[in-house]
């Protein structure tokens, strides 16, 4: 086990940190699951943090100059390179501490990006930073498409989903590929901590983020982030959809600690995927055959995960 985890007792709803490090008044859409998750991330980390933000929704809604929603040091350089920027911050602090130019106190370094910035355009930069073993955590806020540019498909867009570049038509049913498994790619880097999280299970989310920060070396947390604008879902139902994704096994919650898969929540009686799919405009066009395929594949992927957790 990770020694740093021993003293950590976990967050409780009653003793939730009150400080808003990601301040209200930003420009996110109503019901944005991503910004809700990010707020929880920041509460879990506390103020001793440096944030390296990839270009994307979270970057633009929080930093239209001269306004900023950030009560912590924050830097945005470009789209694909947040992990490399974080590598630089971490390296600088290492040498500056050694030279006694800054206090020895530990400061968490958070790199954060969307699914496009993480799994598509930024994959190389993250892979490099993970492989080099920098002491930082990377949080992917996955809303399953390029929402900031107007809902184009990404490698993390789910099978069948309608986006502006995976439109259903006479010869297409929407996204033709299955969602890319970014956490598995991170696990393949042999980093000490990988987890998936959901804003519907906010204490679980915060605990995982805190563990990712506590662990020495690189850590990765993949957070499912409903996007009412991109998904065509009701803003007030974002948390509900986040919960349904877990309850239908569409987005399972787990940790991978030093290579060991641990299910955070075993779904014994899963709800049918239709409960998750309905109410989202992006899936409205899907016929029974496609839904049937999704159900089978979701079950199979979940089984695979269970086997991994039993094996490791």
């Amino acid at each position, binding site marked *: 086990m990770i020694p740093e985890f021993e003293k950590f007792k976990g967050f409780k709803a009653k003793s939730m940190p009150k400080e808003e490090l990601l301040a209200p008044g930003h420009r996110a859409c109503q019901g944005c699951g991503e910004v809700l998750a990010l707020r929880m991330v920041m509460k879990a980390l506390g*103020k*001793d*943090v*440096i944030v*390296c933000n990839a270009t994307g929704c979270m*970057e*633009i809604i929080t*930093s*239209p*100059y*001269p306004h*900023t929603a*950030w*009560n*912590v*040091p*924050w*830097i*945005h*350089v*470009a789209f*694909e*390179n947040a992990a*490399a*920027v*974080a*590598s*630089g*911050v*971490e*390296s*600088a*602090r*290492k*040498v*500056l501490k*050694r*030279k006694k*130019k*800054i206090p020895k106190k530990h*400061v968490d370094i958070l790199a954060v990006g969307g699914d496009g910035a993480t799994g598509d355009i930024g994959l*190389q*930069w993250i*892979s*490099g930073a993970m*492989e*080099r073993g920098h002491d930082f955590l990377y949080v992917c806020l996955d809303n399953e498409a390029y929402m900031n540019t107007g809902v184009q498909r990404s490698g993390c867009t789910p099978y069948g989903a309608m986006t502006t570049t995976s439109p259903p038509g006479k010869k297409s049913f929407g996204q033709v590929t299955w969602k890319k498994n970014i956490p598995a790619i991170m696990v393949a880097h042999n980093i000490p901590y990988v987890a998936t999280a959901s804003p519907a299970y906010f204490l679980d989310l915060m605990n995982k983020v805190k563990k990712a920060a506590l662990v020495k070396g690189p850590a990765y947390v993949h957070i499912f982030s409903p996007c009412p604008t991109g998904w065509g879902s009701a803003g007030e139902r974002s948390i509900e959809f986040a919960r349904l994704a877990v309850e239908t096994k569409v987005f399972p919650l787990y940790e991978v600690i030093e290579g060991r898969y641990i299910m955070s929540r075993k779904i014994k009686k899963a709800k049918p995927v239709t409960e998750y799919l309905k109410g989202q405009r992006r899936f409205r066009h899907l016929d029974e055959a496609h839904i049937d395929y999704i159900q089978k594949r979701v079950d199979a992927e979940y089984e695979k995960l269970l086997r991994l957790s039993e094996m490791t």
Partner: protein
Amino acid sequence: MSKRVGIEVSIAISEAVGLARAEVIPAYPITPQTHIVEHLSEMVANGQLDAEFVPVESEHAAMSCCCGAAAAGARVFTSSSSQGLSLMSEVLYIPSTMRIPMVMVVANRALSAPISIWNDHQDIMVQRDIGWIQTFAENGQEAVDLTIHAFKVAENRNVSLPMIVNIDGFTLSHVIEPIELPDQEDVDKYLPPFKPRYKLDPRRPITMGPVGIPEVYTEAKMAHDMAIKNSKRYILKAWKEFEEVFGRKYEPIDTYRTEDAEVLLVGMGSICETAMTAVDQMRDNGQKVGLLKIRLWRPFPAQEFRKAVGKTKILAVIDRCLPPGAVCGPVGAELRSMFYKIPGSPKIFSFVAGLGGRDVTVSRFEEMVDKARAFAKKRPRELYQVIGVREK
């Protein structure tokens, strides 16, 4: 006492970076820059330099890592060339407008296609407008001195801009020259520790790199332009101080035998060494020819350049870059536009030479001077000429 040693220029540059006490060095290998970062990694490995050497997975990551490290308050150095510089291009524009100081040595090399590892200036001319301060070194000593000077300028709080020192790939990077390596004590005296005005620090949170809405974007870019123009005085000041400490004098434009010159060659980088030999030969033959060397490329020292031209009526400008379909090479275009409609300004002829490692010999300089004289009498049809093209 500083020591004069026979040393490869790349290794000497690494030693200079060490003397400057660089703290974070993100680096990715590319020919002909590799020896610089190889030697730096050795210096870090054997404890000669207390720094973090970050062996990143690409040049884009190298520059991104530089941004993070310098924003966090460290003295940052990296080096690149050619395709690698092009790969980092997206990021290069960012630290300059964000006013994050760092130093990069670019070992200049041709761009693909066809792939060529050899020297010209196409890689850096593509990056002309990135908003970094840029100097060109003529020889190994200059490469060392300009590297130390670059830290001093970049980190000056009134400047706070990233800076590139250009050295010619192979013709400088891989040659062994007698170079005077400064003393650590003198460098420490010249270059105080880096104290950025703003940095990423939880004790004083700031937001770096926010969105520039239309109401602020123009002002941000204008502020950058003003900053780099304003940097010239600090560049000159840092050279003056350099002279006081190390005894070697540098100016934005160097002149060589320009007195009474009828024709002036204009070049930058290591070809100026051959150009000087050519000028000597032509002077011996009674021709009134001189040479102007552009050491400071950005901000362009227009005033100094005009002064250096003096009353000379013909300029033969050498570009080591061929922008296809353009009116001429970037240096030629710069000078033509600078002198446009200024009364008494010289006639400017643009030549492209020395692409992809093609040698520019003494006779080529003579050819350019002859052509410039002929063109001054009868205007040529082309706006520029490529020199040294093989006919067969």
